[in-house]
């Protein structure tokens, strides 16, 4: 009795786990906003099983460093740089949940679900990275121009979005920045927020950031701000010598998150061409994360001159037109060698910044070694066909089991529904992707999953034939079938594991489905069916014949 309770407990636990893994949940996705044509974060509610490209449609690209025009010294490092660059461009793909990863140390895999135009995707990826250093708008020229821009926008008939809530938030936010001012930091001029957040069309969207030339835009209003800034009347009024560049990072203040927008000088003080080396380290004395960089001789001279003129100014590091991290302050004149201090930040962040610098200094030419494009209609057809085949296949298995083993067969079929639930739950819980071969593996594994039950039932029949009592026959049947079940399942799991290790993409999906299926089938076919039998025999202790 006690053991039955424990069994039911385990069954309930596994069921809860599987159901919890499969319940539709809210996930944040970056999706294309149809109105503005920009990427934005949205929350969607969906079953957390992701579909492979072959089911969803999309583009799969494998890239390597192009060595055809002369060897590239460190290809592994070059591919990491390329990965970093492609990541900064990730929004340009315009697809939800793109995958960018380095495989095997020398190959970059880019997967773009739902993307239809391979040429555009390839252009985005293969574009040469461009790095530049620019001084931010220290005189707040852009801020001074905002009232004029607002007027121009109003004249053009652009209304400010709702006034009251914005001003409330701006007050809250103003207090927030005030608290942030660090006493030790030297600032040429303290930004005051008075001029901003006036209820103009543009000013109501912008909040003064922590340093001159830095502005914050609420993430949900970024598309609006972008479309306003792109208007010709605004472009005309942006002060001469100033350009606007978006930052890469989102900053959260309280419950809201903001994207950074920088007003920077239109002329770079130096570009990636002049950069020779960038490495990250942890300073032993100060325990700070530091990026050391070395410039070319010519670059060093330019940099010395420029930094001499801009001591205590902020220098934006811009890769492919996007400002990376918060611009550091120039503390003193810098020559050929310099360092960027990241304070108490983790070394990993310094390493990332060093990678950004190297990516801009030594662009890695990429060549496409594999390209697959799957149209969305093909993916939809594949899912429909796979599900139809699955339903027919499973129905046949159910029919065979119930006709041949009657009530025991029905128990096995009941266990089979748990099996499918657990397998799908396992796929969801570990974040595996369901591919077309995976779907086939799932269907196939249903046929194989009942094998354990067949073994057990046949054994029980044999024991009954030898004149054993029902209870003994069931016990012996399970006991004797066990070694065969374990041996056969382990050997199948081993081959599946090898397939996973050496396979790629869809085949790995197949192997994973098979492995999870084997584990789930061991649980349902042996443990769960045994539990069913225990309940059954307990309810009917005087049973004369077993329906097997």
């Amino acid at each position, binding site marked *: 009795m006690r053991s039955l309770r424990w069994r039911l407990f385990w069954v309930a636990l596994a069921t809860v786990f599987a159901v919890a893994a499969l319940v539709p949940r809210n996930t944040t996705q970056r999706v294309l906003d149809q109105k503005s044509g920009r990427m934005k974060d949205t929350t969607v509610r969906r079953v957390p099983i992701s579909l492979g490209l072959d089911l969803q449609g999309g583009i799969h690209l494998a890239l390597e460093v192009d060595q055809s025009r002369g060897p590239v010294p460190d290809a592994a490092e070059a591919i990491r740089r390329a990965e970093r660059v492609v990541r900064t461009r990730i929004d340009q793909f315009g697809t939800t949940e793109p995958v960018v990863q380095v495989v095997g140390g020398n190959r970059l895999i880019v997967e773009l679900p739902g993307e239809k135009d391979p040429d555009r995707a390839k252009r985005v990826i293969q574009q040469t990275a461009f790095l530049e250093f620019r001084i931010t708008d220290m005189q707040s020229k852009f801020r001074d121009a905002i009232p004029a821009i607002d007027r121009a926008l109003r004249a053009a008939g652009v209304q400010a979005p709702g006034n009251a809530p914005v001003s409330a938030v701006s007050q809250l936010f103003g207090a927030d920045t005030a608290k942030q001012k660090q006493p030790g930091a030297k600032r040429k001029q303290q930004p005051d927020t008075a001029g901003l957040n006036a209820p103009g069309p543009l000013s109501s969207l912008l909040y003064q950031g922590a340093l001159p030339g830095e502005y914050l835009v609420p993430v949900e209003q970024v598309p609006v701000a972008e479309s306003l800034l792109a208007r010709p009347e605004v472009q005309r009024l942006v002060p001469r010598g100033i350009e606007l560049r978006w930052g890469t990072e989102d900053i959260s203040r309280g419950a809201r998150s903001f994207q950074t927008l920088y007003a920077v000088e239109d002329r770079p003080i130096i570009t990636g061409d002049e950069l020779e080396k960038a490495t990250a380290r942890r300073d032993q004395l100060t325990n700070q994360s530091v990026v050391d960089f070395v410039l070319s001789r010519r670059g060093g001279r330019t940099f010395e001159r420029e930094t001499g003129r801009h001591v205590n100014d902020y220098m934006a590091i811009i890769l492919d037109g996007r400002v990376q991290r918060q611009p550091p302050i120039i503390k003193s004149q810098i020559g050929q060698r310099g360092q960027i201090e990241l304070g108490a930040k983790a070394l990993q962040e310094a390493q990332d910044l060093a990678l950004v610098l190297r990516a801009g200094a030594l662009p890695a030419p990429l060549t*496409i*070694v594999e390209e697959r494009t799957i149209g969305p209609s093909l993916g939809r057809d594949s899912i429909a066909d796979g599900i139809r085949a699955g339903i027919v296949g499973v129905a046949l298995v159910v029919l065979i089991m119930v006709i041949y083993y009657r009530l025991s067969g029905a128990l096995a079929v009941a266990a089979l529904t748990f099996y499918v639930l657990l397998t799908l739950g396992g796929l969801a819980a570990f974040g595996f992707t369901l591919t077309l071969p995976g779907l086939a593996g799932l*269907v196939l594994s249903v046929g194989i999953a009942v094998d354990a039950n067949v073994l057990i039932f*046949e054994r029980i029949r044999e024991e009954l034939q030898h004149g054993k009592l029902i209870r003994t026959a069931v016990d012996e049947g399970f006991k004797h079938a066990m070694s065969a079940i374990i*041996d056969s399942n382990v050997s199948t799991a081993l*081959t599946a594991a090898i397939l996973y290790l050496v396979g790629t993409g*869809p085949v790995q999906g197949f192997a994973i489905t098979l492995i999870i299926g084997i584990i789930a089938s061991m649980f349902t076919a042996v443990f769960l069916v045994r539990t069913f039998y225990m309940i059954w025999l307990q309810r009917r202790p005087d049973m004369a014949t077993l329906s097997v």
Partner: protein
Amino acid sequence: MIRLFANANYDFIKWRRWAIGLTLAFIVPGYALFFVRGLNYSIEFTGGTLIQVTTVQPVGTGKIRSALDAAGVRDAEIQQFGASNEYVVRARLGAGGVTAQGSTQATAQAVDSALAHGLGADQYRILRTEAVGPKVGRELQGKAFLAIFFSFIVTLIYLAIRFEWRFGLAAVLATFHDILSTIAFIHYLNLEVSLVVVGAVLTMVGYSLNDTIIIFDRVRENLRKFRRQNLYEILNLSINETLPRSVLTHGTTMATTLALVFLAGEVLRPFALVMTFAIFTGTFSSVYIAAPILMYIEKRWPGQDARGARQFRPGAASVSPAPGAPPRAPQPQAMRQ
């Protein structure tokens, strides 16, 4: 209650020579076919370009061929794929023609523009393109070979631990037979050997071993139970005892693979066909290959089996007939039946 093959008592082992002759008659011509044509490798392995298109009207492969020829895209293979208005164009690397010059992606574009020219831009739609460089294909070939090799090694080790090396060797040889006959099967039907089909072959390795293990597990048990009988009888007994299970499990698995063959679409069909054949050959080899091989191995290298359960050779110490037991036919004679 339905019972199939209950208390069956067929002399399976008697037919071993016939079975081996039959399987050779299947495998050898399959390999002789290599003199005529090679395996139909997918472009994943060879490198090259694949384009699947659907046309508004069923235009026939001839029309597509002439469209490609007109644009100078030669040596491409054109095939109807599933529905009557779906076609697959393949251009393998190394086949000469256009692929030799440009990259595989350039070929994809050339095919696209050739179709736009020959059929009209609104008359077709591209469903899928694949362009694989030569390096990736070569790597994949190596990986597929490694996968099969390692799966053998690992299962051999596992079986040696769980059973005994004689059993393990017999099981692996039977599985090797399955791979040989599956390749012959693929060759007969000229199925496309893609990575997924290699996956099917590997799954078959697992499945076939599984099947052999079920029978050997029974052999192991019966060797302990019936110390008097010789291996020939015990093998037959074990196969007969597990026969209902074999029939049932193959029935359920076959039901799922046949559903995949007929309903799961063109992309999965080679995989499903190979799996269906694999289930058939896996069962066949467990009975007619693995068991006789175990017998031959035992004859060649007699010794303790299944962790010292008994010894086979009469008079080889440890187990001897109990006094007064009926005399038993010497084993070599029984094997010669």
